[in-house]
Protein backbone atom coordinates (compact mmCIF):
# COMPACT_ATOMS: atom_id res chain seq x y z
CA UNK A 1 0.00 0.00 0.00
CA UNK A 2 1.31 3.42 -0.93
CA UNK A 3 1.00 5.60 2.12
CA UNK A 4 2.76 8.93 2.15
CA UNK A 5 1.13 10.06 5.38
CA UNK A 6 3.53 10.51 8.25
CA UNK A 7 2.58 10.61 11.89
CA UNK A 8 4.96 13.24 13.20
CA UNK A 9 6.80 16.38 12.27
CA UNK A 10 10.10 14.60 12.90
CA UNK A 11 9.20 11.97 10.34
CA UNK A 12 7.99 14.61 7.89
CA UNK A 13 11.32 16.44 7.91
CA UNK A 14 13.72 13.55 8.48
CA UNK A 15 16.85 13.65 6.38
CA UNK A 16 16.85 17.30 5.36
CA UNK A 17 20.55 18.08 5.22
CA UNK A 18 22.57 21.20 5.95
CA UNK A 19 23.08 23.24 2.80
CA UNK A 20 19.80 22.17 1.22
CA UNK A 21 17.88 24.36 -1.19
CA UNK A 22 14.34 24.62 0.20
CA UNK A 23 11.31 25.86 -1.73
CA UNK A 24 8.62 27.35 0.49
CA UNK A 25 5.11 27.89 -0.85
CA UNK A 26 2.74 30.70 0.01
CA UNK A 27 1.94 34.22 -1.08
CA UNK A 28 1.50 36.67 1.73
CA UNK A 29 0.11 34.70 4.64
CA UNK A 30 -1.99 32.43 2.41
CA UNK A 31 -0.80 28.91 1.64
CA UNK A 32 2.31 29.25 3.78
CA UNK A 33 3.43 25.99 5.36
CA UNK A 34 4.24 27.65 8.67
CA UNK A 35 4.04 24.49 10.73
CA UNK A 36 6.64 22.83 8.51
CA UNK A 37 8.90 25.87 8.72
CA UNK A 38 8.70 25.83 12.49
CA UNK A 39 9.39 22.08 12.31
CA UNK A 40 12.43 22.75 10.18
CA UNK A 41 13.80 25.09 12.85
CA UNK A 42 13.34 22.27 15.36
CA UNK A 43 14.89 19.77 12.94
CA UNK A 44 18.04 21.88 12.88
CA UNK A 45 19.22 21.93 9.24
CA UNK A 46 21.36 25.01 8.62
CA UNK A 47 23.14 26.86 5.84
CA UNK A 48 19.93 26.67 3.82
CA UNK A 49 19.11 28.38 0.55
CA UNK A 50 15.49 29.43 0.87
CA UNK A 51 13.33 30.06 -2.18
CA UNK A 52 10.10 31.91 -1.40
CA UNK A 53 8.14 34.74 -2.93
CA UNK A 54 8.16 36.86 0.22
CA UNK A 55 10.43 37.14 3.19
CA UNK A 56 7.47 36.89 5.56
CA UNK A 57 5.93 39.45 7.86
CA UNK A 58 5.39 38.24 11.38
CA UNK A 59 8.76 37.78 13.06
CA UNK A 60 7.48 35.20 15.50
CA UNK A 61 6.48 32.46 13.06
CA UNK A 62 7.56 30.74 9.89
CA UNK A 63 10.19 32.07 7.54
CA UNK A 64 11.25 35.20 9.46
CA UNK A 65 11.86 33.01 12.52
CA UNK A 66 13.91 30.57 10.43
CA UNK A 67 16.05 33.47 9.26
CA UNK A 68 16.21 35.05 12.71
CA UNK A 69 17.70 31.89 14.21
CA UNK A 70 20.36 31.96 11.51
CA UNK A 71 19.51 28.92 9.43
CA UNK A 72 19.28 30.64 6.05
CA UNK A 73 22.46 31.39 4.14
CA UNK A 74 20.64 32.87 1.19
CA UNK A 75 17.18 33.95 0.12
CA UNK A 76 15.95 33.65 -3.48
CA UNK A 77 12.89 35.84 -3.63
CA UNK A 78 10.87 38.27 -5.73
CA UNK A 79 9.64 40.58 -2.98
CA UNK A 80 11.71 40.53 0.22
CA UNK A 81 10.36 43.91 1.35
CA UNK A 82 8.21 44.14 4.47
CA UNK A 83 10.13 41.73 6.64
CA UNK A 84 11.96 43.46 9.45
CA UNK A 85 13.89 40.30 10.23
CA UNK A 86 15.23 39.95 6.71
CA UNK A 87 15.87 43.67 6.50
CA UNK A 88 18.16 43.64 9.50
CA UNK A 89 20.00 40.48 8.47
CA UNK A 90 20.48 41.81 4.95
CA UNK A 91 21.75 45.19 6.09
CA UNK A 92 24.13 43.46 8.46
CA UNK A 93 25.45 41.36 5.56
CA UNK A 94 24.40 38.18 7.30
CA UNK A 95 22.24 36.80 4.49
CA UNK A 96 22.62 36.71 0.72
CA UNK A 97 19.81 37.79 -1.56
CA UNK A 98 18.97 36.84 -5.14
CA UNK A 99 16.08 38.96 -6.40
CA UNK A 100 14.16 37.23 -9.21
CA UNK A 101 11.15 38.62 -11.09
CA UNK A 102 8.10 36.81 -9.76
CA UNK A 103 7.09 35.26 -13.07
CA UNK A 104 10.62 34.21 -13.87
CA UNK A 105 10.79 32.67 -10.41
CA UNK A 106 7.60 30.68 -11.01
CA UNK A 107 8.77 29.64 -14.47
CA UNK A 108 12.26 28.62 -13.29
CA UNK A 109 10.69 26.42 -10.63
CA UNK A 110 8.19 25.01 -13.12
CA UNK A 111 11.05 24.33 -15.54
CA UNK A 112 12.86 22.32 -12.87
CA UNK A 113 9.80 20.15 -12.40
CA UNK A 114 9.28 19.80 -16.15
CA UNK A 115 12.83 18.79 -17.07
CA UNK A 116 13.55 22.03 -18.92
CA UNK A 117 17.08 23.02 -17.89
CA UNK A 118 16.89 26.53 -19.33
CA UNK A 119 14.63 28.85 -21.29
CA UNK A 120 14.60 32.28 -22.88
CA UNK A 121 12.40 35.10 -21.62
CA UNK A 122 11.99 38.80 -22.42
CA UNK A 123 11.33 39.56 -18.73
CA UNK A 124 14.16 41.56 -17.24
CA UNK A 125 15.96 42.44 -20.48
CA UNK A 126 17.90 45.67 -20.15
CA UNK A 127 17.62 45.71 -16.37
CA UNK A 128 20.03 45.20 -13.53
CA UNK A 129 18.62 41.70 -13.04
CA UNK A 130 19.83 40.70 -16.52
CA UNK A 131 23.45 41.48 -15.71
CA UNK A 132 25.73 38.53 -16.39
CA UNK A 133 23.00 36.64 -18.21
CA UNK A 134 23.22 35.49 -21.79
CA UNK A 135 21.15 37.75 -24.05
CA UNK A 136 19.78 36.64 -27.40
CA UNK A 137 17.26 37.80 -29.97
CA UNK A 138 14.78 34.96 -30.29
CA UNK A 139 11.16 34.78 -31.36
CA UNK A 140 11.36 38.40 -32.49
CA UNK A 141 12.40 39.85 -29.12
CA UNK A 142 15.48 40.36 -27.03
CA UNK A 143 15.53 37.70 -24.33
CA UNK A 144 17.73 36.47 -21.54
CA UNK A 145 18.51 32.88 -20.68
CA UNK A 146 17.13 31.70 -17.35
CA UNK A 147 17.92 28.39 -15.68
CA UNK A 148 15.73 25.85 -13.92
CA UNK A 149 15.63 26.25 -10.16
CA UNK A 150 15.75 22.72 -8.83
CA UNK A 151 15.60 22.12 -5.10
CA UNK A 152 16.32 19.46 -2.53
CA UNK A 153 13.18 20.11 -0.54
CA UNK A 154 9.77 21.70 -1.10
CA UNK A 155 7.52 22.67 1.80
CA UNK A 156 3.92 22.89 0.70
CA UNK A 157 0.59 23.74 2.28
CA UNK A 158 -2.46 21.95 0.89
CA UNK A 159 -6.15 21.97 1.73
CA UNK A 160 -6.90 18.29 1.09
CA UNK A 161 -4.59 15.32 0.64
CA UNK A 162 -4.91 11.54 0.38
CA UNK A 163 -2.44 8.76 1.15
CA UNK A 164 -1.13 8.79 -2.45
CA UNK A 165 -0.19 12.44 -1.98
CA UNK A 166 -2.85 13.89 -4.29
CA UNK A 167 -3.49 17.50 -3.29
CA UNK A 168 -5.99 20.30 -3.65
CA UNK A 169 -5.63 23.88 -2.43
CA UNK A 170 -7.98 26.55 -1.20
CA UNK A 171 -8.57 29.98 -2.67
CA UNK A 172 -5.38 31.87 -3.40
CA UNK A 173 -3.51 29.33 -1.25
CA UNK A 174 -2.64 27.55 -4.47
CA UNK A 175 -0.03 30.12 -5.62
CA UNK A 176 3.50 28.66 -5.70
CA UNK A 177 2.59 25.42 -3.93
CA UNK A 178 1.76 23.17 -6.93
CA UNK A 179 4.71 24.52 -8.91
CA UNK A 180 7.14 23.91 -6.07
CA UNK A 181 5.74 20.48 -5.25
CA UNK A 182 7.02 19.22 -8.62
CA UNK A 183 10.48 20.77 -8.43
CA UNK A 184 12.10 19.16 -5.40
CA UNK A 185 13.66 15.82 -4.62
CA UNK A 186 11.76 15.68 -1.33
CA UNK A 187 8.31 17.28 -1.24
CA UNK A 188 6.74 17.56 2.20
CA UNK A 189 3.13 18.66 2.57
CA UNK A 190 1.19 20.00 5.53
CA UNK A 191 -2.45 19.43 4.74
CA UNK A 192 -5.47 20.85 6.52
CA UNK A 193 -7.50 17.73 5.75
CA UNK A 194 -6.71 14.11 4.99
CA UNK A 195 -9.18 12.26 2.78
CA UNK A 196 -9.74 8.61 2.00
CA UNK A 197 -8.13 7.47 -1.23
CA UNK A 198 -10.69 8.00 -3.97
CA UNK A 199 -12.49 10.85 -2.20
CA UNK A 200 -10.80 13.51 -4.32
CA UNK A 201 -12.35 13.97 -7.77
CA UNK A 202 -9.68 12.96 -10.33
CA UNK A 203 -10.59 16.04 -12.40
CA UNK A 204 -10.09 18.32 -9.38
CA UNK A 205 -6.71 17.09 -8.15
CA UNK A 206 -4.27 19.97 -8.62
CA UNK A 207 -1.06 18.23 -7.57
CA UNK A 208 -0.98 14.55 -8.56
CA UNK A 209 0.65 12.33 -5.95
CA UNK A 210 3.66 11.55 -8.13
CA UNK A 211 5.16 14.87 -7.05
CA UNK A 212 4.66 14.34 -3.33
CA UNK A 213 6.89 12.49 -0.85
CA UNK A 214 5.30 12.96 2.58
CA UNK A 215 2.02 14.28 3.92
CA UNK A 216 1.51 15.52 7.46
CA UNK A 217 -1.94 16.32 8.81
CA UNK A 218 -1.80 19.87 10.23
CA UNK A 219 -5.26 21.36 10.82
CA UNK A 220 -3.69 24.75 10.75
CA UNK A 221 -6.82 26.83 10.44
CA UNK A 222 -7.39 29.93 8.36
CA UNK A 223 -4.72 32.47 7.51
CA UNK A 224 -4.84 35.79 9.39
CA UNK A 225 -6.63 38.73 7.74
CA UNK A 226 -4.70 40.37 4.90
CA UNK A 227 -3.42 43.92 4.68
CA UNK A 228 -5.86 46.81 4.96
CA UNK A 229 -6.85 48.55 1.76
CA UNK A 230 -5.08 51.83 1.10
CA UNK A 231 -7.11 54.71 2.50
CA UNK A 232 -8.68 56.90 -0.12
CA UNK A 233 -11.92 58.75 -0.62
CA UNK A 234 -14.20 56.15 -2.14
CA UNK A 235 -16.89 57.01 -4.66
CA UNK A 236 -20.52 56.66 -3.64
CA UNK A 237 -21.28 54.02 -6.22
CA UNK A 238 -18.81 51.22 -5.70
CA UNK A 239 -18.63 48.44 -8.21
Amino acid sequence: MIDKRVASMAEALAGIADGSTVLIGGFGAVGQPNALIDGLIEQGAKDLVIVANNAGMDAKIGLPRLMAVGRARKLVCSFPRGSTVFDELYKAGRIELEVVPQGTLAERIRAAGAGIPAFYTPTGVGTKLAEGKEQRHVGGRDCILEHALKADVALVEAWRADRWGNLTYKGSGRNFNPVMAAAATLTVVQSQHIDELGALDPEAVVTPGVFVSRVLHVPYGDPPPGNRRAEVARPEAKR
Partner: protein
Amino acid sequence: MKPFGRAEMAAKLAADIPEGWYVNLGIGLPTLVADYVPAEREVVFHSENGILGMGPAPPEDAVDTWLVNAGKENVTLRAGASLVHHADSFMMIRGGHLDLCVLGAYEVAANGDIANWTTSLNDAVPAVGGAMDLAAGAKRLWVMMEHTTKDGRPRLVERCAYPLTALAAVKRIYTNLAVIDVSARGFEVRQVADGVSFEALQERTGAKLHRPA
Protein backbone atom coordinates in the same frame (compact mmCIF):
# COMPACT_ATOMS: atom_id res chain seq x y z
CA MET B 1 -3.94 75.00 -10.75
CA LYS B 2 -6.25 72.24 -9.65
CA PRO B 3 -4.41 68.88 -9.84
CA PHE B 4 -6.33 65.63 -10.14
CA GLY B 5 -6.78 63.87 -6.79
CA ARG B 6 -5.95 60.20 -6.43
CA ALA B 7 -9.60 59.22 -6.75
CA GLU B 8 -9.89 61.40 -9.84
CA MET B 9 -6.82 59.79 -11.42
CA ALA B 10 -8.24 56.37 -10.73
CA ALA B 11 -11.65 57.30 -12.15
CA LYS B 12 -10.09 58.83 -15.23
CA LEU B 13 -8.06 55.71 -15.92
CA ALA B 14 -11.03 53.46 -15.19
CA ALA B 15 -13.13 55.35 -17.75
CA ASP B 16 -10.58 54.43 -20.41
CA ILE B 17 -10.89 50.67 -19.83
CA PRO B 18 -13.39 49.17 -22.25
CA GLU B 19 -15.63 46.26 -21.40
CA GLY B 20 -14.04 42.88 -21.92
CA TRP B 21 -10.48 43.78 -21.10
CA TYR B 22 -8.35 41.57 -18.85
CA VAL B 23 -6.51 43.89 -16.50
CA ASN B 24 -3.82 43.62 -13.84
CA LEU B 25 -3.63 46.49 -11.37
CA GLY B 26 -0.33 46.96 -9.58
CA ILE B 27 -0.18 47.32 -5.83
CA GLY B 28 -0.73 50.76 -4.27
CA LEU B 29 -2.37 53.52 -6.27
CA PRO B 30 -3.38 51.41 -9.30
CA THR B 31 -5.44 49.11 -7.06
CA LEU B 32 -7.93 51.97 -6.64
CA VAL B 33 -8.87 51.84 -10.32
CA ALA B 34 -11.10 48.79 -9.81
CA ASP B 35 -13.43 50.81 -7.60
CA TYR B 36 -14.26 53.11 -10.51
CA VAL B 37 -15.20 50.47 -13.06
CA PRO B 38 -18.96 49.97 -12.71
CA ALA B 39 -19.98 46.33 -12.24
CA GLU B 40 -22.18 46.43 -15.33
CA ARG B 41 -19.15 47.15 -17.48
CA GLU B 42 -17.48 43.75 -17.30
CA VAL B 43 -13.73 44.11 -16.89
CA VAL B 44 -11.86 41.05 -15.63
CA PHE B 45 -9.26 41.80 -13.00
CA HIS B 46 -6.24 39.56 -12.62
CA SER B 47 -4.00 39.15 -9.61
CA GLU B 48 -0.50 37.67 -9.96
CA ASN B 49 -1.09 35.16 -7.21
CA GLY B 50 -3.53 33.21 -9.33
CA ILE B 51 -6.87 35.00 -9.39
CA LEU B 52 -8.71 35.89 -12.56
CA GLY B 53 -12.04 37.65 -12.04
CA MET B 54 -11.28 39.43 -8.79
CA GLY B 55 -14.12 41.35 -7.18
CA PRO B 56 -14.10 44.26 -4.71
CA ALA B 57 -12.92 44.18 -1.12
CA PRO B 58 -15.30 42.17 1.09
CA PRO B 59 -17.52 43.74 3.73
CA GLU B 60 -15.69 43.62 7.06
CA ASP B 61 -17.98 40.95 8.50
CA ALA B 62 -17.61 38.58 5.56
CA VAL B 63 -13.88 38.33 4.89
CA ASP B 64 -12.54 35.12 3.35
CA THR B 65 -8.93 35.25 4.49
CA TRP B 66 -8.02 32.57 1.90
CA LEU B 67 -8.36 35.19 -0.82
CA VAL B 68 -5.74 37.91 -1.11
CA ASN B 69 -4.64 40.03 -4.04
CA ALA B 70 -1.07 40.88 -5.01
CA GLY B 71 -1.03 43.55 -2.30
CA LYS B 72 -2.01 40.91 0.28
CA GLU B 73 -5.38 42.61 0.83
CA ASN B 74 -8.43 40.39 1.20
CA VAL B 75 -10.59 40.36 -1.91
CA THR B 76 -13.62 38.57 -3.33
CA LEU B 77 -14.33 36.57 -6.46
CA ARG B 78 -16.85 37.57 -9.11
CA ALA B 79 -19.09 35.07 -10.83
CA GLY B 80 -16.89 33.72 -13.62
CA ALA B 81 -13.69 33.82 -11.60
CA SER B 82 -11.03 31.13 -11.75
CA LEU B 83 -8.08 30.19 -9.55
CA VAL B 84 -4.78 28.98 -10.92
CA HIS B 85 -1.25 28.38 -9.66
CA HIS B 86 1.59 30.84 -10.02
CA ALA B 87 3.11 29.49 -13.23
CA ASP B 88 -0.29 29.46 -14.92
CA SER B 89 -1.01 32.93 -13.56
CA PHE B 90 2.20 34.34 -14.98
CA MET B 91 1.49 32.50 -18.23
CA MET B 92 -1.40 34.95 -18.60
CA ILE B 93 0.97 37.85 -17.96
CA ARG B 94 4.05 36.73 -19.85
CA GLY B 95 2.16 35.14 -22.73
CA GLY B 96 0.63 38.49 -23.66
CA HIS B 97 -2.91 37.57 -22.66
CA LEU B 98 -3.66 40.61 -20.49
CA ASP B 99 -4.97 43.66 -22.32
CA LEU B 100 -3.67 46.09 -19.77
CA CYS B 101 -1.41 46.40 -16.79
CA VAL B 102 -1.38 49.51 -14.62
CA LEU B 103 1.71 50.13 -12.51
CA GLY B 104 3.03 52.86 -10.32
CA ALA B 105 6.48 54.20 -11.19
CA TYR B 106 9.35 56.34 -10.00
CA GLU B 107 10.18 57.48 -13.52
CA VAL B 108 9.04 57.02 -17.09
CA ALA B 109 11.22 58.01 -20.02
CA ALA B 110 10.07 59.52 -23.32
CA ASN B 111 10.89 56.24 -25.09
CA GLY B 112 8.63 54.29 -22.71
CA ASP B 113 11.33 52.98 -20.38
CA ILE B 114 10.01 52.51 -16.87
CA ALA B 115 11.79 52.51 -13.51
CA ASN B 116 9.56 51.36 -10.69
CA TRP B 117 11.21 48.71 -8.58
CA THR B 118 14.11 50.20 -6.72
CA THR B 119 15.24 53.74 -6.15
CA SER B 120 18.92 53.07 -5.91
CA LEU B 121 21.51 50.58 -6.98
CA ASN B 122 22.39 50.30 -3.30
CA ASP B 123 18.89 49.93 -1.96
CA ALA B 124 18.80 48.31 1.44
CA VAL B 125 16.31 45.73 0.21
CA PRO B 126 15.56 45.64 -3.50
CA ALA B 127 12.24 43.99 -4.36
CA VAL B 128 10.79 43.53 -7.82
CA GLY B 129 7.69 41.36 -7.41
CA GLY B 130 5.92 40.84 -10.71
CA ALA B 131 6.68 44.30 -12.14
CA MET B 132 9.22 43.17 -14.75
CA ASP B 133 6.98 40.34 -15.96
CA LEU B 134 3.98 42.65 -16.19
CA ALA B 135 5.87 45.43 -17.94
CA ALA B 136 7.38 43.06 -20.49
CA GLY B 137 4.35 40.83 -20.92
CA ALA B 138 1.08 42.75 -20.92
CA LYS B 139 -0.35 43.98 -24.23
CA ARG B 140 -0.17 47.54 -22.94
CA LEU B 141 1.29 49.17 -19.88
CA TRP B 142 -0.17 52.31 -18.35
CA VAL B 143 1.44 54.11 -15.45
CA MET B 144 -0.22 56.05 -12.61
CA MET B 145 2.00 58.37 -10.65
CA GLU B 146 2.51 61.88 -9.31
CA HIS B 147 3.87 64.16 -12.02
CA THR B 148 6.84 65.17 -9.91
CA THR B 149 8.61 64.02 -6.78
CA LYS B 150 7.74 65.59 -3.44
CA ASP B 151 10.61 68.05 -3.90
CA GLY B 152 9.46 68.96 -7.40
CA ARG B 153 11.79 66.97 -9.66
CA PRO B 154 10.12 65.60 -12.79
CA ARG B 155 9.24 61.89 -12.98
CA LEU B 156 8.67 62.07 -16.73
CA VAL B 157 12.21 62.21 -18.04
CA GLU B 158 14.42 61.94 -21.10
CA ARG B 159 16.20 58.96 -19.65
CA CYS B 160 15.51 57.13 -16.37
CA ALA B 161 18.09 57.61 -13.63
CA TYR B 162 16.78 54.81 -11.45
CA PRO B 163 17.30 51.13 -12.33
CA LEU B 164 14.96 50.08 -15.14
CA THR B 165 12.03 47.72 -14.88
CA ALA B 166 11.55 47.32 -18.64
CA LEU B 167 12.56 48.96 -21.87
CA ALA B 168 10.13 50.89 -24.10
CA ALA B 169 7.10 49.44 -22.36
CA VAL B 170 4.86 52.32 -21.20
CA LYS B 171 2.05 53.42 -23.51
CA ARG B 172 0.25 55.99 -21.35
CA ILE B 173 0.77 57.88 -18.09
CA TYR B 174 -1.88 59.22 -15.72
CA THR B 175 -0.45 61.85 -13.37
CA ASN B 176 -2.01 64.36 -11.02
CA LEU B 177 -1.46 67.00 -13.71
CA ALA B 178 -2.14 65.29 -17.02
CA VAL B 179 -2.79 62.23 -19.10
CA ILE B 180 0.09 61.64 -21.47
CA ASP B 181 0.59 59.09 -24.24
CA VAL B 182 3.98 57.66 -25.05
CA SER B 183 4.16 57.57 -28.84
CA ALA B 184 6.94 57.25 -31.38
CA ARG B 185 7.42 61.02 -31.00
CA GLY B 186 7.72 60.80 -27.23
CA PHE B 187 5.35 62.31 -24.66
CA GLU B 188 2.04 63.44 -26.15
CA VAL B 189 -0.35 65.37 -23.92
CA ARG B 190 -3.92 64.03 -24.09
CA GLN B 191 -5.46 65.98 -21.24
CA VAL B 192 -4.40 68.44 -18.53
CA ALA B 193 -5.89 69.20 -15.15
CA ASP B 194 -7.89 72.38 -14.78
CA GLY B 195 -5.70 75.44 -14.76
CA VAL B 196 -2.59 73.63 -15.94
CA SER B 197 -1.18 75.25 -19.04
CA PHE B 198 0.91 73.33 -21.56
CA GLU B 199 3.83 75.53 -20.61
CA ALA B 200 3.38 74.90 -16.88
CA LEU B 201 3.24 71.18 -17.56
CA GLN B 202 6.37 71.34 -19.72
CA GLU B 203 8.14 73.10 -16.87
CA ARG B 204 7.40 70.17 -14.55
CA THR B 205 8.41 67.57 -17.12
CA GLY B 206 11.96 66.37 -17.83
CA ALA B 207 11.50 65.75 -21.55
CA LYS B 208 9.86 67.51 -24.45
CA LEU B 209 6.05 67.41 -24.50
CA HIS B 210 4.12 67.23 -27.73
CA ARG B 211 0.62 68.43 -28.46
CA PRO B 212 -1.43 65.58 -29.87
CA ALA B 213 -0.98 65.17 -33.64
